């Protein structure tokens, strides 16, 4: 579905004239600029609203995630990127005050329908968190945990194989193959994050959600993860939240810009970063706030 072009309802001329740092909340957004849909979407969110108690954290968001694409979500902090991402695998179910309505479909199936089990959903929609959070167990056990609880490996050998292939896909195998039984928490930050990615991959998800996966990492580790994301795109759809616009530009094909709970603009990454259509997007990517 196409959203109507958004308009700034509060003193746009004034804003354009002064080009100064602006108050975030002084703008209202009507709908989303750009095409939120893709043909043959993997996931489709329609009219999603999220409340934390009284706080309206996500407002009428429509957004698709396509096959084999990396969708990045950018925006100032507190604008609801994580909230929206966590709706996609019902991680928000664990927050008592959080209410979600609207529809989010995975391959045409509503994930908030009562026939959809959140456990089954999270096997299909994996997640990598902002802070690397390996289990305080061995590297092997970290990766093997998911397959084990779901019974994905029939015997020890196939489990070991699965662990190896997951670690290889996460680009970590060569670094850890001799230390598989050392604690995962002993790895460096970047290695830990790749371990978490391997852990997510091990249950063969269809979609991987990443919430600022590099925010705790140094540039070299970040580069490795970005490379990895690019490789993973071949087999998975990826939605990544990032506060780094360069990262969004480097890894993603489509970009969504969020602003105070509104989805302001969606478009091809190159278009968003070279010719944003919405004033807020432009102000954000040119660094006027954030």
């Amino acid at each position, binding site marked *: 579905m196409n959203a109507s072009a958004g308009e700034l309802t509060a003193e746009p001329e004034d804003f354009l004239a002064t080009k100064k740092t602006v108050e975030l909340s002084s703008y209202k957004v009507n709908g989303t600029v750009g095409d939120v849909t893709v043909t043959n979407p993997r996931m489709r969110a329609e009219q999603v609203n999220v409340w934390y108690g009284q706080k309206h954290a996500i407002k009428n968001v429509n957004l698709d995630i396509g096959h084999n694409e990396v969708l990045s979500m950018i925006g100032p902090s507190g604008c609801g990127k994580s909230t929206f991402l966590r709706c996609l695998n019902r991680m928000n179910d664990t927050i008592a005050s959080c209410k979600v309505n609207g529809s989010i479909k995975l391959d045409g199936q509503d994930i908030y329908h009562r026939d959809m089990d959140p456990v089954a959903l*999270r096997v299909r929609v994996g997640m990598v968190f902002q802070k690397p959070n390996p289990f305080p167990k061995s590297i092997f056990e970290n990766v093997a945990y998911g397959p084990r609880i779901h019974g994905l490996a029939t015997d020890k050998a196939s489990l070991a194989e699965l662990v190896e292939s997951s670690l290889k896909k996460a680009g970590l195998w060569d670094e850890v193959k001799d230390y598989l039984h050392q604690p995962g928490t002993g790895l460096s930050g970047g290695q830990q994050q790749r371990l978490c990615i391997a852990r997510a991959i091990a249950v063969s998800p269809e979609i991987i959600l990443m919430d600022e996966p590099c925010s705790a990492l140094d540039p070299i580790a970040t580069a490795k993860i970005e490379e990895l994301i690019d490789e993973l795109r071949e087999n998975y759809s990826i939605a990544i939240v990032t506060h780094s616009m360069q990262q969004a530009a480097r890894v993603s094909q489509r970009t969504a810009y969020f602003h105070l709970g509104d989805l302001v603009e969606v478009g091809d990454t190159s278009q968003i970063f070279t010719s944003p259509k919405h004033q807020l997007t432009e102000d954000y990517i040119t660094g006027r706030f954030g």
Partner: protein
Amino acid sequence: MNNPASTGPKTVDIVNKTLEKRYAAERRFKLYGLTAVTIGIICVAILFISIVFKGYTAFWQTYLRLDIHFSEEIIAPDGERDAETLAEAEYQELIQESIFKLFPKVTDDEDRSKLLEIPSSSSSFILQRMVLNDPKLIGQKRTLWIPTSSDIDMLVKGYITRDLPEADRKVKNQTIAWVDQLVQQNRIEQHFNWNFFTKGDSREPELAGIGGAITGSFYTLLVTLILSFPIGVLAAIYLEEFAPVNIWTDIIEVNINNLAAVPSVVFGLLGLGMFINFFGMPRSAPVVGGLVLALVTLPTIIIASRAALKSIPPSIREAALGVGASKMQAILHHVIPLALPGMLTGAIIGMARALGETAPLLMIGMVAFIVDIPQGIFDPSAVLPVQIFLWADSPERGFVEKTSAAIIVLLAFLILMNLAAVILRKRFERRW
């Protein structure tokens, strides 16, 4: 930011002025802290040293070497060997015979009865048991070490001042002379007092031991642990992980915190009213003591377990949920194993508290004088702190050192338990 053009005093000068004052405040604060810690350590040291000095002698017992002739005429003049005859024989006479032989010049009946006060009154039971175990002893001679009576024990350990006027002294001049003579003959020695650890209570200080009380405490704590640990941990897990947040859980939370602060005597009264008077459970039994102490420790364990669960970062739960674990799996596989050391620490501290708890046990009749070592949780028994309470109340000089010795044992157990808790905490301490 400092404007270089400004003429006011430089920031660094202002800072420097206050710097000395700030360091002085820090030094003062450190000094106060150090003083407080030192005073605390001195108090504890005084307490420990005084108890150890009063009590350590109780771990030794004075023994008297006697040459006993298990004469057939005295034990079984008719040549019988059945248990009844052997049990009822006059073993006291064997002792008399051997003692009188040591002091051939003492012939006066009154003096002779004084002589008989030197060995413990339990001596005849020792001989009786030996003969019952091995009837072949009859007719033979044996050299035995027999415990002396408590008064002689006190005399030998130097607790009885010889300079006191004879009238004020428990052991008279005559007896002192005899004992000195026995010492010269190497017939008096101090041996390690195993009986103190293996025997039950007794009216005679030289026979009294904490074996019964330790066993009683063990059974009581066993009941306490079996009840309060699983209940406490399950309650904590439910409240922390599953309970809905509403007014009822708030009320429960407040009540648990209140219960932790309720004086333990109140739990004792509850135990008396409910378990003994209403359910008719036996008085003075570890099972009731354990039930009451379970009530006392439950809040502690629940609070410690909840704190342990709370300290597990949510990122671990999210990690588990993120790969498709159910809530139960996330808790069972990740949260509980990580929280377990904290829970165990709480349980150990709760048990240490239960071990020292006295007041509620007085309420349920665990102050009874019990000689036998309990064989199970339904037998009447004493517990360590109550045993200390009982002995501290006894007038005999011999119980003073026993009291302190029992306190040493109790403290040793408490230190061990708390040490275990600290080690557990250190060993499993994690940085996330």
